[in-house]
Structures are given as structure tokens and as C-alpha cells.
């Protein structure tokens, strides 16, 4: 690996850590600033296929299929006094690892894949939810900063074992 790619990998790792911190701290405005206005944010439904037939996720049904406007609706909703699903907010801990730089054009675009594990604890419930999967991200360089312009989250369950996705992946 070239030094340039090592540095870029480090840079995106730090970017993903910062994003995780914003989301875990429920700082939606901070998170929003990291997104590109033309973002596509998708979480396809995972399916059980016979054998190793791929892809083993749906190309036409999603748990999230958002652009920036829809993401803003979700965030605005969470800020109202009626968003019961997150009152009080879940305690989440996002661990990002196995970060791989797939494509890299300095100061222009990058494709980064990473693994994500979300620990979620609600209220006084002693049980926790675990949501795990792979993020396939694309970044665009705008005004000296990398912005997330595409995310596909490939979740590891075909039946999600969490009561809702009032949180972001």
C-alpha cells in the first residue's frame, strides 16, 4: 500500500469515527454537516438465497431509501416532542472497523467499505439490540472536506431483531 493510500485510509477511519460520535451523541446537526446534499442513503432488505447466489439483498425494497430531504424529515421529527420511539433516546454505541479504501481519487472522490456494529439499549430494558452489517460508502470532496454522497448498508439479518430503525445506520 502506498503512503498516500495509508494516509487516506487513516483519514476516512477518522471521518467514520467522528460520524459515529455525532450519531451516538445524538448530535444530528453535526452529522448532517458531514452529508453531501446529493446523498443516497440506502439499506436494502437482506434475503435468504439458495446456495451462494448473489446479491443476497433486494434491489427494490429497502428499510431506508432516503435522499437529503427525507433524512431531514427524519431528523426534524426526532426533534419534536412526539417522537416517542426515541423518547428517551436509545443509548447507542457504533463501532466501525475493517475500514478498506476501495477507490481513491485525491481531492475528488473515494469509495470506502467498513464494518459497523451498533449496540442499542432502550430505557430500563436490560436486553440490548445488536445491528451489524457492512457499509459501502462513497465520498465526494467539496470545499476542502469529504462529504458522504452515498451509503449502502448491508445488514446481517433478514429479520431485524430491533423494534424499529428510529436510529441511523
Amino acid at each position: 500500500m502506498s503512503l498516500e493510500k495509508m494516509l487516506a485510509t487513516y483519514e476516512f477511519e477518522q471521518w467514520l469515527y467522528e460520524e459515529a460520535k455525532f450519531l451516538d451523541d445524538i448530535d444530528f446537526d453535526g452529522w448532517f454537516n458531514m452529508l453531501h446534499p446529493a446523498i443516497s442513503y440506502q439499506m436494502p432488505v437482506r434475503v435468504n438465497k439458495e446456495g451462494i447466489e448473489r446479491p443476497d439483498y433486494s434491489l427494490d425494497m429497502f428499510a431506508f431509501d432516503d435522499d437529503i430531504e427525507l433524512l431531514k424529515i427524519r431528523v426534524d421529527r426526532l426533534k419534536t416532542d412526539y417522537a416517542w420511539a426515541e423518547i428517551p433516546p436509545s443509548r447507542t454505541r457504533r463501532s466501525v472497523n475493517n475500514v478498506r479504501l476501495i477507490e481513491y481519487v485525491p481531492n475528488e472522490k473515494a469509495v470506502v467499505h467498513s464494518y459497523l456494529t451498533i449496540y442499542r439499549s432502550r430505557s430500563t430494558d436490560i436486553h440490548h439490540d445488536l445491528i451489524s452489517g457492512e457499509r459501502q460508502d462513497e465520498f465526494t470532496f467539496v470545499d476542502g472536506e469529504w462529504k458522504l454522497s452515498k451509503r449502502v448498508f448491508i445488514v446481517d439479518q433478514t429479520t431485524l431483531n430491533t423494534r424499529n430503525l428510529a436510529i441511523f445506520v
Partner: protein
Amino acid sequence: MIKTNINLEEMSQKEAIEYLIESVRPEEGSIPASLLGDPKIYDIEHKKVFLKTWLFIGHESEIPNKNDFITRDVAGYSVILTRGADGEIRGLYNMCTHRGMKLCRADAGNKSSFTCPYHGFNFKNNGDCVGVPLQKDIYGEGFDKSGLGLHKVRIETYKGLIFGTWNDEAESLEDFLGDFKWYLDILVGRAEMEVVGPPQRFIIQSNWKIGADNFVGDSYHTMVTHGSIVKLGMVPSATYSKKGYQIHTSHGHGLNLGTPNPDFAFPEELKDEYKSNLTEEQFDVLSNLKNMIGNIFPNLSFLISHTKVKGQLISNTSVRLWRPVGVDKMEVITWFLVEKNASLDWKKRSRESFILTFSPSGIFEQDDTEVFTDITAAATGTMPLVKQLTFNYTMGLHRQPVGDFVGPGVVFDDKFTEANQRNFYRYWLDLMTT
């Protein structure tokens, strides 16, 4: 006299049923909390409700071609739902008749036969056993495979909705749905409908009846639980959910029609198709529809929702199964349906509004799940039973149904009543005590 020291666990099934007859009083608007949390009741429910009635399995558009199949659950048992080479839809118990191994582990696919992973017995998708490895050598010349066909689940369909039952004595699906078909025509018979993609699945720590109760008759909660949607301007006002009709028919089925609607909630260009599939009265209801929320007994809920997304009005149609996996746990399975002949733009926006509002990430759905979970927790265990905690279902008991509505059933002229829940629990009780 109600017993004061109740312990269902130690009761025989007969005694438990007697307790239900004494304590469940839908006509008086009194429903014990323990119906949502007692394991004994859950066990009886499995035998008396889920093994007796018709249960939703899927939609015909999910298996459009010969040899297409999907695997689904019918009352806790895996079923391969397949369209044979003859075009007929069959439900096969997903169990090898030789030693009981599960034949197929994929959610969907296209296959004309299924081979058991244990000993390699092979079954055609009409259920016939067509291959036994080394048959002549190990079973002898006279071996007859014809008795080894896969077990079948009884299948019937209505307007593309596929139902199954393990009860060979059950009345026909047509009779089971009865007058409710008039409304299902509007839901799924108004045009050629197709399911888009696989269903979404997620787990809620909730008794399944809370979901059915919520959809069959609870428009009242919309004002508060879904208050955030009003704040966002996606629906007109907090009291919009009161306007319209609440309707129920026999067999515990019920729905809520939100009307009127100044806008046509469906693709304008399909009006001719709607008119050709519906009666004039049904088309009139469709034209004024703001939303439609209901439940086919026991656990198939449905929804047409018309909201404003990104400044544009759009409707979406979905059905959802509250599949019990335990007394305090259910798998929610949701299917999104759309008019096959709608424009690509409509299909895209309709799916978008479905995902935004009524999927696991749906901003309506997610607030409901919080409520369902907490109700279940509160109803669980011995205390609600011993203390005989009951829920109040008396809303609208003083009201008389209207006589001049165009559709069948018992109709109330606004949605804030609990007549549908009383009707749901009446039929539930009838089945439980039969």
C-alpha cells in the same frame, strides 16, 4: 363468580376456557390485560385460533411464473408456496416425509423440485415424491413412493391475496371473508396490484393482538402517538383521524375509512381501470378515500395511507402480518403493493412514502412499536391475572350504527369508537371457547 385466586398455569385447558368465558366481556367493553401476556392463553390461541382459521401467506404477484416459489410460515410451520408447471398454486409443508428434514431454506426462487439435504429424497413441486436414492437396491422392487408425497396446506385466494389453513374443515375463504370482501376489493382488487421486492421483517417484543387491535379500530391513538407527523405537516390536523367511518363485519374483521379527501389519492390515469374493477359505490368510496386501516382476522392488517411527502401528495398500500413467535414476541412482516399499471414515477414515490412512514424505519411505525412493547411488558406475568386488571373498551358503546352507508357491515359514522375491537375480541372468544 370470578375466582379470586387464579392460576392459569395449574388449570386444565377446560378450566382456562371457563375463566375466559367469565372474564372476557367484549360487549361490556372489558378485556383482561392477561390476554396479552399469559402463556397458557397463548398456547390455547395457537390451537383454537391459528390452527383453525385462514392465515395470510403471500400475494400471487410474488410467484408470477411457473415453478416460482416462496417459503412462508403458516401458524408456526414452514410452507413452500409454489406455482406448479400447471400454473396452480400449492402449499407444501416444508418437511421431508421420510425423516422430517426441512427441504428448502431459501426465501424465494424458481425450482421444479426440491431435494432433501438429509437422504436426498426428491419431491416435485406438486408434492409428489419422485426420487429416492438407491431405491431399488435398498427398498426392493415393490417400493411405492406414491404414499410419500409432501403434506399439503389448504390454499385459497381472494383478489391476489393467498391464504392457507391447516384446518380441512374450515369454511371456504370466500365465506370466511364474507361481507369484508367489499372493502378488500378497494384495497387490493381496485386494479392489478403487485408486491414490490421481498417483504420487510422485524421483531417486536409485543403480543400479536396489540398490532391487530391497533389496526382494526384504533384511530384514536393517531392524535398523540403520531403527533410528530402532524407537526411536520404530513397530515392535515391532529383530529383528521376522527373523520370517516368505522366498519366491522362477521369473523372479527374490521376497518376504518378515512374520508373525505378533496384530492384523488390514487393515480389519475388509472381511473378507467378502477371503474372496471369496482362497482360505482366502491369507486365512489375510493374517490373520497383519505386512508383505510383495518385487519383481517386474526393477524393480517392493511393500510392505504395518503400523506404529503416533499410537498407532494402520495398514497401507498401495504399489508402486514403480526406473526406470533411467542406470547410476548412477534415478527412483523410488511408487503408494499402498487398498481402494476401506474407510472414509474408514481411507483417510485409510493414506495418512498411507504418506506418513510410504515417500514421498520417508518416514522409512523416506529412510534407504534414503542407503545406495543411497553403494553406487552405491563401485561406479562402473574400480577395482571391475579389482580384481574382489565382494559376499557367502552368507547362508542352508547352509539348506534348508521343505516345508510353504501357498503356492508356494521358502520359507525366516525372512527373514534371501539366497536371494531369489541367485534375482534368477540370472534376471538368464540373461537377460543368452541
